[in-house]
């Protein structure tokens, strides 16, 4: 089975954004658990944080394809 080093590099680099997403949504769930009324206030912030963390994971994916 063959592969490229770029894909291995991308696989390793998803540790960061994966951890970040877990932390962000853990904080969101804790916040909503303490105070359920804050759900609609915290939701845009949670999604903003998630998209920013996801961006880095997707940079890695795109660069893995572009720089073979």
């Amino acid at each position: 089975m063959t592969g490229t080093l770029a894909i291995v590099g991308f696989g390793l680099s998803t540790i960061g954004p994966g951890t970040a997403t877990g932390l962000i949504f853990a904080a969101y769930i804790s916040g909503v658990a303490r105070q359920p009324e804050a759900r609609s206030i915290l939701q845009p912030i949670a999604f903003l944080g998630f998209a920013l963390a996801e961006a880095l994971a997707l940079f890695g994916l795109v660069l893995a394809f572009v720089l073979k």
Partner: protein
Amino acid sequence: MPSKLQFAGESIYTFIRNELGRDVIGPEFMRFVPFLFSLFIFILTNNVFGIVPLLQFPTMSHIGFPIGVTIFSYVTYHYVAIKKHGLGKYVKDICFMPGIPKPVYLILTPVELLTYLVTRPLTLSMRLFANMFAGHLLLLVFTLGGEYLLTSGLILKFLSLFSFSFAIGLSFFELGIQALQAYIFTLLTALYIAGALADEH
């Protein structure tokens, strides 16, 4: 009595005007609402083209389109800041932010300059491009995989059902991601404009 289409259009408009305009930008938000609304609808429509059945081409998955849209955001937030504060004061505020001890400027100034001039437009366009590219690639993998399984042995023909249904499920997930990316782009543009208009910076 407003019709359903009118209600949908008005609810999107009030969402942009309230959440992204008034809450993010502050007092002078009305003059930016047309720009933010056009940005949101343009990116959302172009993204949704990726799952329309016969079209299936998310425009933003070719790097030129996000670059084009980002140029609008970039020019806007710099122009707003220069028009409000003046060119000299704006550059001075980026390079030498007030209220920070002097030695920190050695690290802070290059980082701030790089952020304002390079990182912000780069990450804005790359985020949109990479999300649309990856989503389209994912849909392609499952659809073409299903087709390949369909043309091989008998047991694999059965597995192609799972592949196609996964492709359909992913299309709905992609709809959520596309709306989220349009919202994030518009929100970040509004945040940059708010930062440009802020007084204490």
